[in-house]
């Protein structure tokens, strides 16, 4: 058997664990859904189609879209405040 030595593990556990939702959602009917627009050029096409599906097929009452200044930046505090106050559900990540 090969000789061994004790070394430290250089990694840190990721703290990206799923968080408990603050409030649960029974369904989408009557809900207000928020989107954080990642500021990439095709976002509006994606979100418009999803919004139409959500309102026509799933009974979502309204959609709130708010744009970030850039894709690599976090959303502004006032946007986060508004969406968390007004929405039952917020979609924060999207592709382009």
């Amino acid at each position, binding site marked *: 058997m*090969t*000789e*061994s*030595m*004790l*070394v*430290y*593990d*250089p*990694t*840190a*556990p*990721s*703290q*990206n664990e799923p968080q408990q939702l603050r409030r649960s959602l029974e369904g989408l009917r009557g809900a207000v859904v928020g989107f954080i627009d990642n*500021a*990439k*050029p095709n976002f509006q096409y994606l979100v418009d189609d999803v919004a139409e599906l959500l309102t026509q097929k799933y009974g979502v009452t309204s959609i709130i879209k708010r*744009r970030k*200044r*850039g894709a*690599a*930046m*976090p959303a502004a505090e006032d946007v986060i405040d508004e969406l968390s106050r007004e929405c039952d559900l917020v979609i924060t990540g999207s592709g382009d």
Partner: protein
Amino acid sequence: MSTRLSPNHARLVEAPADLDEFHRYVAERKWGDGLPVIPPTQDRVERMLRHTTREPDDLVAVIAPGFGAATPRRIAINAVMAGCAPELMPVLIAAVEAVAAPEFNLQGIQATTNPVATWIIVNGPIVERLGLNAAFNCLGQGNSGNASLGRALRLVLQNVGSARPGEMDRATQGQPGKYTFCCAENENESPWDPLHVERGIARERGAITVVGAAGTLNMNTHAKDSDDLLRVIADTLEHPTSNDYWIGGEPWIVLSPEHAHILARDGLSKSEVKKRLWERSKMRAGRMAAKDLARTQTGRTAELGPIDENTLLPVSPTPDLIGLVIAGAPGTHSVYVPSFGDTRSVTREVA
């Protein structure tokens, strides 16, 4: 019954003592950067920790995107692996604190497809005391302090921040500066106040500045007149695929002592150089691809008002955001260091 460890607690594990086998062990766990590392044994980590007054398991910073806890001990572990001398520990702790400042936007830098390296610039008397390189080949190989500091910060970002290539580090190609990217300012050869003094830190104190750097480009010019020199540097900044132009960033220029002295000889202060470069490097927005122009309109209309193809875009929102540092040895070479754009450099005093 298992004991739940605090997220700050660093684990000891059994690893092969044979160096070849240890190299494979590290590679399998993705703990390294591909090059061999020094085994982070307890003795070596303890020697590193003697150079800080901080408690080994206290929190220094939380490192995005994994939000792992960077403690003095974890920083020391990664510093040992990178080959840092123990005396470098306070410099590295300051750099880790700096990258975690919100304006640096580490979350974006770590997870982006862009080739962003974290460049460390060191200032103050610590440069000489620690034997860091500000002159010949200061951005290249050869100096243990420069090489290991930049490398150690990369290992902290990867191991504590969970940014591994192809996983949370989504860089399309990355760049060689992601192995290591560190230099000192050549304060002795600078005609102006050094960077840390410009940012409010006393000249006799040590300091680091971290920059989200998207590469390096040689600017070789034998210009001997300040106006001619500024014209060709400004021309080099302009390029339509630049993050700095479409976001409004913070580009950096490493001026060679020779170029800096030409500008100072003609009576230009550092802030006047920045102002002239900012004015002369404005780029017509129509040079960009249509899709990039659309992004610029989204990102910079609040700053610049309505943008069309004839708008002249400044490289940064204000002239003072052009970073200037003097480094290198004799020669006609300065370096353009474009930034990630969505980032601002951060300066911290070294304790």
